[in-house]
């Protein structure tokens, strides 16, 4: 007699037999409940608390809000009150948490023994040794050096007090990408330095001389927001307003690709192009007479830069230079930005802004507010003193000169002559390898401090959680050593860093405090993340003193056969991001390469050098040699080889060590370009990328329309698939209450990758490493589709954030044998992890390829696991996963509304990607609410609305707004 078991029961029993112990979540949960002794009124277990602070990942000083669950920061978000970030963030800011919870952070103080190895010692012993050495060194003058990056005003003041009390003047400010050329150019043009604030959104024309303002230059979050306004077309019709952007530089960065025209330029002649444009502006009488502007002096200055001559050298057509000048000069608001390592390019940009009357319009300059005192020294001075044996104690905090200083500086050699080198930081880096004492200091998330992005924007930093490792705040180290070792005991008379920062603010803002006194002012600043006020920009005049001799082109590059153009990696930046696996695994937006360094070579150059893809090449400058694999791309000038900065660490934790090459090792101080010789290396190294192609294979996934079409108001016809038009087999799905949807504006999207990092953080998405990315196992729920159209009449590069489209007719749903992929009555495609048995049919059937399968049990080495979001299931091996529209946030919003007896408000529920997006390209909302911001955006941009792969009739919940572009052929 056959056994009669229904298919469903069979599956049930079979699953129970095999999976009882293997399914994630079936492990015994935490078995203890540990109560508070005295509860904190602000902490509700199970509900997040938010603390405002200020980011320290770059110099932009964005305000952030830390989401804290049960005493652990699980996510950083932008601070909506802060005028710089306005609630958005960037990939590097998001990934700060992986610095905080980095498994390779120094756990406790260490001392280097005679054998060269480091051994843990107690804090008392470490501090005792430092105090003794400082006491002895303070007897003489200038025997103590403090080397650190430019810090917030409070910390700068503390260091100044500390170093003064110890009878020294060796405060060395060192950051590898510190904008020295920008400052020098201002010195030249205006006679002194100012703090610039750009307003791209007030401009009609933008000219970037190698300024990657959407990635690493200036204040990327703020500038991306402005650029999105500048570069989103409004009012279809003849009067459509649509900013025009030119990028002149040797390499197509994502910023260059997002400008209308990327003009590949020889690295030596960016300044020349800028000055040639200025000459045309002056010749055509387009300059605005302004106070202090001596037209004749300007004319003399730019006389040598004949457009035709410059055009030949730079590789840009002379007509293009004329045209740029015409447009720049006639625009109602134009802005020139320079990010070159060549000071002359910065001078050119300032002169362009000044001559066209845009100072005070598209760029404001503020008087810098530096606390009075001796200016910081630069690294050379300290290196000389160390070399001469004058420095007895060097304290190096949160900076890594051994990695990023040019070999010409001989930093390491000089440091070896210092009797006591104290390193303070998080993950021990190359500089730590030279230190005698290694002290773990609090990460900025755990520390007090402040920032000053520009006058009027004073960010405050507060600890948002208790420390992760046995560390001390840097300020506490300064205070304790000043108390114990300084001859003048009253230098830093504070208990701890908190006291010092508070006292500094009390002094600094004594004129801003209202009637309620400083306590109320301080509390408000802590709550809001700082003190934000309006400061009038300075009235700036060009110095008439600059003469022609001031403008020198980098002659070492002229005539060079090959030029190395090192550029800061958008995520790894100057190298400080390399210890964070998220930043390693988010592909560089243009090359789409992960976990490695590469050399971008133009196809013509590759042919000339006889190298192929992935071949290792050795690039040799007089200072050294680096070996990198070749990546062939047309996005680089034929004379240049572009290599990203950031990799090539020999230390700095497991994720950074022995990966790629370090271009700082072949560069002269302060420069990013140098003439190089080329040698063929031995063998190949495969460059790994999560994308396989830049071609859309005739299916316009990213749809575009030209500006002319937009002006004519023609809505493009949807692309037709050669299938019969779909007939509906099923009843339409009914959504009783909500139908969640998303609108993504492809004109606003800058391809910065903040959404990807935010998604990693919010949804416990695992990182997999280079080898698994190579095997196609990358887990990112949202990715940046990147296409490189090759016709002249298409945009340079197309990007599109691709995530689960939450289709109404989802191809993934009917193929799941166990109903793990199901449709919700709120328009979501759900993935029920506990049902999933891993057939991967859904992944195969998904036309958008947004589903990811867990081939392995994901791993977060301790304490990286502390960052995991407790509201989201950690998926185990064998389970399919995909974007959920941050369903945990939807549920949280719905529960919040339910308990307050109201409906969910528009804008209350924001997925992590939309929240992070600096350019506000992503809007989320309810499609059943016609007044939601998301639906309004669709209506306002009706002509640009399209759905990805619309003819497949999947009815996605995501609507994209077509990219409007200017055909490349017009330049």
């Amino acid at each position, binding site marked *: 007699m056959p056994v009669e078991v229904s298919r469903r029961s069979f599956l049930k029993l*079979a699953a129970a037999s095999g999976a009882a112990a293997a399914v994630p979540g079936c492990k015994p*949960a935490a078995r203890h409940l540990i109560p508070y002794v005295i509860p904190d009124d602000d902490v509700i277990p199970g509900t997040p608390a938010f603390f405002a602070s200020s980011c320290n990942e770059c110099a932009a000083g964005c305000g952030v809000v830390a989401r804290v669950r049960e005493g652990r920061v699980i996510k950083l978000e932008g601070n909506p009150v802060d005028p710089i970030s306005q609630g958005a963030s960037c990939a590097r800011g998001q990934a700060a948490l992986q610095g905080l919870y980095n498994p390779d952070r120094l756990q406790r103080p260490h001392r280097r023994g005679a054998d060269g190895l480091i051994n843990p010692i107690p804090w008392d012993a470490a501090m005792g040794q430092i105090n003794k050495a400082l006491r002895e060194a303070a007897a003489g003058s200038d025997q103590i050096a403090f080397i650190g990056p430019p810090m917030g005003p409070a910390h700068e003041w503390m260091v100044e007090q500390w170093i003064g009390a110890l009878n020294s003047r060796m405060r060395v400010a060192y950051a590898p990408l510190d904008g020295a050329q920008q400052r020098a150019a201002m010195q030249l043009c205006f006679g002194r330095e100012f703090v610039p604030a750009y307003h791209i959104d007030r401009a009609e024309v933008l000219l970037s001389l190698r300024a990657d303002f959407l990635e690493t230059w200036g204040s990327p979050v703020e500038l991306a927001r402005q650029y999105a306004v500048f570069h989103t077309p409004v009012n279809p019709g003849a009067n459509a307003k649509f900013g025009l952007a030119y990028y002149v530089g040797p390499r197509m960065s994502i910023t260059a690709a997002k400008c209308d025209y990327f003009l590949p330029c020889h690295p030596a002649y960016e300044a020349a192009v800028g000055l040639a444009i200025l000459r045309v502006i002056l010749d055509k009488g387009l300059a605005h007479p302004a106070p202090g502007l001596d037209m004749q002096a300007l004319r003399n200055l730019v006389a040598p830069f004949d457009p035709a001559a410059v055009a030949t050298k730079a590789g840009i057509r002379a007509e293009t230079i004329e045209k740029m000048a015409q447009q720049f000069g006639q625009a109602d608001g134009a802005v020139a930005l320079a990010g070159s390592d060549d000071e002359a390019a910065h001078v050119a940009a300032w002169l362009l802004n000044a001559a066209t009357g845009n100072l005070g319009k598209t760029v404001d300059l503020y008087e810098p507010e530096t606390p009075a005192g001796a200016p910081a020294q630069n690294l050379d001075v300290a290196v000389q003193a160390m070399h001469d044996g004058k420095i007895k104690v060097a304290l190096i905090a949160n900076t890594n000169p051994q990695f990023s200083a040019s070999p010409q500086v001989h930093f390491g050699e000089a440091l070896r002559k210092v009797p006591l080198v104290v390193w303070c930081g998080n993950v021990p880096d190359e500089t730590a390898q030279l230190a005698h004492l290694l002290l773990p200091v609090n990460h900025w998330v755990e520390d007090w401090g402040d920032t000053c992005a520009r006058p009027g924007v004073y960010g405050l930093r507060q600890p948002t959680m208790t420390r992760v490792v046995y560390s001390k705040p840097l300020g506490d180290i300064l205070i304790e050593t000043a108390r114990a070792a300084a001859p003048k005991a009253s230098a830093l008379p504070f208990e701890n860093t908190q006291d010092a920062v508070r006292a500094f603010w009390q002094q600094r803002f004594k004129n801003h405090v209202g009637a309620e006194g400083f306590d109320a002012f301080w509390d408000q600043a802590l709550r809001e993340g700082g003190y934000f006020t309006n400061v009038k920009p300075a009235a700036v005049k060009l110095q008439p003193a600059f003469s022609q001799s001031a403008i020198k082109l980098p002659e070492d590059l002229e005539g060079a056969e090959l030029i190395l153009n090192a550029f800061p990696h958008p995520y790894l930046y100057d190298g400080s991001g390399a210890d964070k696996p998220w930043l390693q695994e988010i592909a560089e937006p243009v090359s789409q390469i992960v976990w490695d360094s590469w050399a971008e070579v133009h196809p013509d150059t590759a042919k000339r050098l006889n190298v192929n893809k992935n071949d290792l090449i050795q690039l040799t400058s007089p200072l050294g040699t680096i070996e990198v694999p070749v990546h062939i791309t047309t996005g680089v000038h034929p004379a240049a080889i572009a290599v990203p900065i950031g990799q090539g660490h020999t230390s700095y934790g497991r994720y950074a060590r022995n990966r790629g090459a370090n271009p700082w090792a072949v560069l002269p101080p302060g420069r990013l370009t140098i003439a190089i010789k080329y040698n063929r290396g031995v063998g190949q190294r495969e460059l790994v990328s999560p994308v396989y192609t830049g071609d859309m294979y005739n299916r316009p996934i990213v749809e575009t329309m030209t500006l002319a079409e937009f002006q004519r108001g023609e809505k493009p016809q949807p692309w037709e698939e050669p299938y019969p038009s779909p007939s509906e087999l099923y009843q339409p799905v009914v959504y009783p209450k909500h139908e969640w949807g998303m609108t993504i504006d492809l004109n606003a999207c800058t391809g910065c990758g903040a959404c990807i990092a935010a998604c990693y953080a919010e949804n416990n998405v695992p990182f997999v490493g280079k080898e698994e990315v190579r095997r196609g196992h990358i887990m990112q729920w949202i990715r940046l589709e990147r296409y490189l159209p090759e016709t002249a009449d298409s945009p340079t590069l197309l990007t599109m954030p691709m995530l689960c489209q939450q289709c109404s007719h989802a191809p993934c749903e009917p193929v799941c044998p166990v109903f793990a992929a199901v449709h919700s009555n709120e328009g979501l495609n759900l993935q029920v992890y506990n049902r999933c048995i891993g057939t991967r049919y859904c992944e195969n059937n998904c036309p958008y390829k947004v589903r990811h399968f867990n081939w392995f049990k994901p791993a977060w080495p301790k304490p990286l696991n502390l960052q995991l979001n407790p509201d989201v299931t950690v998926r185990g091996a064998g389970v399919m996963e995909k974007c959920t529209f941050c369903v945990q946030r939807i549920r949280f919003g719905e*529960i919040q509304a339910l308990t307050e007896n109201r409906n969910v408000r528009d804008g209350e529920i924001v997925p992590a990607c939309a929240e992070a997006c600096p350019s506000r390209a992503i809007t989320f909302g309810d499609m059943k609410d016609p007044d939601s911001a998301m639906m309004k955006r669709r209506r306002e941009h009706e002509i640009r609305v399209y759905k990805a792969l619309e003819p497949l009739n999947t009815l996605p919940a995501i609507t994209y707004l077509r990219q409007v572009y200017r055909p490349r052929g017009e330049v």
Partner: protein
Amino acid sequence: MKYGAIGVAVLILIGGISMALLSQRPWLARSDVVQPIPFSHRIHAGIRHIPCQYCHEYARRSENSGVPPIERCVGCHASLAQQFALHPVDKPWIDHEQAAFDVRWNRVYTLPDFVRFYHSPHIHAGIACQRCHGPVETMDRVTPVYEINMGFCLNCHTQRHVSIECSTCHY
């Protein structure tokens, strides 16, 4: 061949049934939990009529209901001990020599990682605690009354016409 296939199916079946029966099912509420302190819900909630949320104060506003802080216990047992003739719990509750008091209650109710349960909407919907936790006010030692599995949740959700979408609890 045909019988061979049936034989394999039967073996898998037997294996499955025995695994299901023999496995500890660690996600279920446990009846064998002994607490470090002989705390009686019968006396507190039953005889003294202390409302559940006086101690489990987060239930109405959070995911977790929360266990009472030591302060809450001492609040009654120290200051009101005389007035209400309470058992003065003097050891080690108000022993100031002792370091921060460390009580580790043992969990009775747990849920698997892939289930999200929020107390707050249930409290706001007027669901009595006893609906899931049983008559706790009659128990000296809390033991589960209902097997809290998906069927248990779904029954109630279906009866009350509230969402039975997967994403209500699984994400």
